[in-house]
């Protein structure tokens, strides 16, 4: 077997048994990147020398009997996590040459646990998008395709998902503000979890919408996500919204039974066609595995996307005010300081980022704040209350991950609102701060992967992993993408 086909768990076990070294694993991934990245555009920056140095150090550490939970495992880092001394772009021209002087908490914990970073992977600009088309470094190509049409990998973590699906990394970090882990995971036929808000520190993650942003892993199995999340998660005093809670052994939860668990199925999500059929299949799998299926109601879900498109741009307009051409990032000279700001931001930001900054500025401006922003915060409270009510009768919720499989490049780019609808099933978990995972569950009529989503109670990622792993076992999803190392 080519070393790039190991699962993360399998690679760690093989290194422990001495069947393979980190250097061999890392070299195999770097070869795969050399061969396929020109076609996929998943990596913005490949740090081959650093990766090989880290791999040699990892092998030495393991030889000394001091291996950590991830020692020697080559993974990819979404280019939204600051990495000390390594260019971090957020997929934007405005940060095209930015080299952070510090390391994000999540990546520093991965390094602490021995992970080898292969490089920084592509994303929608500032994580704003559902197709990866808004990256200043070009779109990412989905390793899955249908005849004649290159497909998008989803977004914003499209580079993370494409790299993992095509075997250019064992796993990857990602972030999710409205669906940016789960939608690309579903489009690329892999697993991904957005944990509870506060589970992973946001320190050193370039901010988009701070009350919604949350980091999480994407990987080819549910258990691999569990292994990576354990290292990413944990309290950090440098993020005041980081939760001071013990991090459980998420991987153990992947082997628990769903027997006795109550699975909620929201009445309002009724669909047609193959996505509904897959959802019905998922319900049947869980029932067969011993779970109890209960109908629930999430009546405010239909207002979740408009709510999100007030809250997220509002926070983004504030967060992105820092890009002014003065302290770091691109500068375009101007006649005076204001002209410098305006020219820098006009040249540095892409169209979707500008739209969101302007929407956010408008909904926060005098005279409109109550009608838009406060209203959205109130609807957000109602969306969360829907879930709180549901938790009275169920332990986890099952929905489709996305309304469709991956679409062709350019298909939805002309209409911003059409693009926003991709996140219809995922965005509620961000607004309510809940953990939610996408797991590959089947193929559509064109042979493209579809995912199912499991949503859990706050800080009950373990239930999410238990249910997602049960779906993974029942689905037996083994189809591979057309473009793969």
């Amino acid at each position, binding site marked *: 077997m080519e070393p790039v086909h190991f699962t993360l768990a399998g690679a760690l076990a093989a290194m422990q048994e001495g069947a393979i070294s980190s250097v061999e694993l890392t070299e195999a991934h770097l070869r795969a990147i050399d061969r396929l990245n020109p076609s996929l555009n998943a990596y913005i920056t490949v740090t081959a020398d650093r990766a090989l140095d880290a791999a040699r150090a990892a092998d030495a550490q393991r030889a000394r009997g001091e291996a950590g939970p991830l020692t020697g495992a080559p993974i990819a880092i979404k280019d939204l996590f600051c990495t000390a001394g390594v260019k971090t772009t957020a997929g934007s021209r405005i940060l095209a040459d930015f080299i952070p002087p510090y390391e994000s908490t999540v990546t520093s914990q991965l390094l602490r646990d021995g992970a080898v970073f292969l490089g920084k992977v592509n994303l929608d600009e500032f994580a704003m998008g559902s197709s990866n088309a808004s990256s200043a470094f070009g779109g990412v190509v989905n390793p899955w395709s249908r005849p004649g049409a290159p497909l998008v990998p989803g977004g914003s973590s499209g580079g993370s998902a494409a790299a993992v699906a095509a075997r250019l990394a064992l796993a990857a970090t990602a972030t999710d503000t409205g669906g940016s882990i789960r939608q690309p995971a579903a489009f690329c036929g892999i697993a991904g979890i957005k944990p509870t808000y506060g589970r992973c520190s946001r320190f050193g993650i370039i901010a988009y919408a701070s*009350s919604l942003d949350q980091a999480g892993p994407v990987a080819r199995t549910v258990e691999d996500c569990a292994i990576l999340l354990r290292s990413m998660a944990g309290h950090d005093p440098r993020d005041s919204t980081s939760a001071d809670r013990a991090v459980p052994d998420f991987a153990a939860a992947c082997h628990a039974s769903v027997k006795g668990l109550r699975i909620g199925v929201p009445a309002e999500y009724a669909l047609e066609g193959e996505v509904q059929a897959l959802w019905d299949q998922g319900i049947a799998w869980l029932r067969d595995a011993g779970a109890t299926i209960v109908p629930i109601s999430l009546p405010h879900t239909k207002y979740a996307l408009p709510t999100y498109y007030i809250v997220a741009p509002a926070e983004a307009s504030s967060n992105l005010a820092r890009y002014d051409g003065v302290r770091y990032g691109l500068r375009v000279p101007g006649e005076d300081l204001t002209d410098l700001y305006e020219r820098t931001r006009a040249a540095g930001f892409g169209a979707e980022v500008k739209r969101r900054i302007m929407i956010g500025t408008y909904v926060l401006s005098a005279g409109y704040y109550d009608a838009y922003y406060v209203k959205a915060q109130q609807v957000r409270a109602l969306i969360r209350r829907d879930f709180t009510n549901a938790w009275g009768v169920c332990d986890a919720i099952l929905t489709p991950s996305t309304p469709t499989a991956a679409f062709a490049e350019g298909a939805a780019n002309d209409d911003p609102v059409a693009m926003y609808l991709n996140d219809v099933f995922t965005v509620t978990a961000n607004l309510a701060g809940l953990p939610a995972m996408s797991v590959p569950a089947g193929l559509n009529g064109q042979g493209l992967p579809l995912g199912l989503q499991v949503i859990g109670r706050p800080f009950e990622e373990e239930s999410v992993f238990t249910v997602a792993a049960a779906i993974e076992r029942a689905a037996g999803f083994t189809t591979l993408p057309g473009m793969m190392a």
Partner: protein
Amino acid sequence: MSLDAKTVRRVATLSRLRVEEADIPRLQAELNGILGWIEQLQSVDTTGIEPLAGGGDTVLPLRLDAVTDGDQAEAVLANAPDRAGAFFAVPKVVE
């Protein structure tokens, strides 16, 4: 609530984004498309509902009001587009 061209210019100024006059009609159409779609929120009854600002339930922690970092001028300035000694440099603001 539909944005006219004047409001689009004003929002661009507040956003510190230079917008060319030729781009105003396109921006106006895009922003109105988004705002028109968002308008459906007005049909939700939110009487007496406390606005929810944050993503989590955690009460924000207090910390000591103490200096924990500093003397990092070189690191702070490492990415500056322009500098003068230990300072960021910008075009002349005061004549």
